[in-house]
């Protein structure tokens, strides 16, 4: 599902500095699953922000409310009356949720508290790996289920390119060449015809695959492990 990472507290604090009654809206969907924007994170962020505001001698206060899914109007009904009491909203949902909030409450400023990072898989508690960039023209059918957009450094739709080097990518010999993997999988399935089909190239920038490790769980994956 959608994976996100929390924004730095300083950025959130700056966003809300002109407001005193602040409602932090969590989402019980994807961001809850990836441990960044569910009820528990709403409560944690509120405690942290309230401490920061108090330390700064500011009057502002955050309250929290978590809805089933922020990307669906149906689930915002519960919010309607509540929102009236607040000057601004913080959303811990993905960008889609933030936008629906902003659309439904046009007179309330809405600030995101997370950076929507990826569509990915759950590797471990708090560790998520990007697998899809919603390119809108999925080619997995002829690439043996390996996404060239997120796995190939150049996001090539036809590969491998001349930079493939004994199974590694020319960008770094740490990184496997996605198209080599595609070739191997198709070969094993007797589907090499697929790799010969030419696809229109896409304009891609910034195709760095993202890895999300949630800060509070990071210590589980660093240092010696028992």
């Amino acid at each position: 599902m959608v994976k996100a990472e929390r924004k730095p507290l300083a950025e959130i604090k700056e966003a809300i500095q002109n407001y005193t009654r602040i409602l932090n809206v969590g989402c019980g969907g994807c961001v809850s699953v990836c441990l960044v924007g569910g009820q528990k994170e709403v409560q944690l962020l509120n405690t942290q922000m309230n401490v920061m505001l108090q330390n700064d001698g500011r009057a502002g206060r955050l309250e929290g409310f978590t809805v089933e899914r922020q990307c669906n109007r149906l689930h915002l009904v519960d919010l309607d009356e509540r929102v009236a009491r607040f000057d601004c909203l913080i959303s811990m949902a993905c960008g889609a949720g933030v936008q629906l909030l902003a659309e439904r409450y046009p007179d309330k400023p809405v600030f995101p508290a997370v950076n929507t990072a990826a569509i990915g898989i759950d590797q471990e508690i708090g560790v998520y790996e990007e697998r899809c960039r919603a390119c809108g023209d999925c080619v997995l059918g002829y690439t043996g289920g390996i996404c060239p957009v997120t796995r190939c450094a150049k996001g090539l739709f036809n590969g491998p390119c001349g930079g493939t080097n004994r199974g590694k990518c020319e960008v770094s010999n740490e990184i496997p060449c996605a198209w080599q993997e595609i070739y191997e999988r198709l070969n094993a399935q007797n589907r090499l015809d697929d790799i010969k089909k030419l696809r229109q190239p896409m304009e891609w920038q910034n195709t760095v695959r993202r890895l999300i490790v949630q800060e509070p769980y990071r210590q589980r994956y660093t240092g010696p492990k028992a």
Partner: protein
Amino acid sequence: MYAIVRGPLVWIAILVFILGTAFQVYRFYALTRRKAALALAPVSPPPPGPAPAEPVPVVEEVPLSLVQRLRLSILGTSPVTIAVTSVFHVCLVLLPLFVLGHNVLMDMAWEISLVSLPEALADALTVVVMAGGAFFLGRRLFYPRVRAITSAYDYVVLALATTPFVTGFLAFHHLFDYDTVIFLHMLSGELMLMAIPFTKLVHMPFFIINRFVLVHENSFGRGGHRVWR
């Protein structure tokens, strides 16, 4: 009957408790496997070009006071229950090991004994356990959310866990007929021991397993190392 409860049943109860618990733990290990090491594909380096002017800031921690952190935990939502249950459980587990009466019996059987608590203190802690039991009974009867998931079974288990303390208390104070009371005390203590591996009291070993051994969001320590197969 009295002879059975006094003699063989004590041993049977202790055996059932130890073997039953061992079986549950064994079964857990048979049903789970060690978590495979986290194997992440290497992440591509950022595309060539100027590096971002400012390094991406790490999510900084706001130092929260102990009280603030506890408020965010289960203590914040159910402070009274957690306080009562902690005291209740510590007494429940430790008290039987340090009661003078038990140590005298253990000494006679195996010639070993643990330090005994002063009798007055043991007696007071027994009252604490009974009060805890009364608290849980009250919750079951009057707190809607607990009532909603309570069945006769829960009362039976609560009784199983607390009767040894009630009868132990009565025996210590020689209330009612001592022989009957001590008979009931031994019987109820034995039943409770035997019930631990096979009723919801099995939460004693499984609390440790679930929270320390299994991989879970709320695992203690470094996050556990086993998963169900």
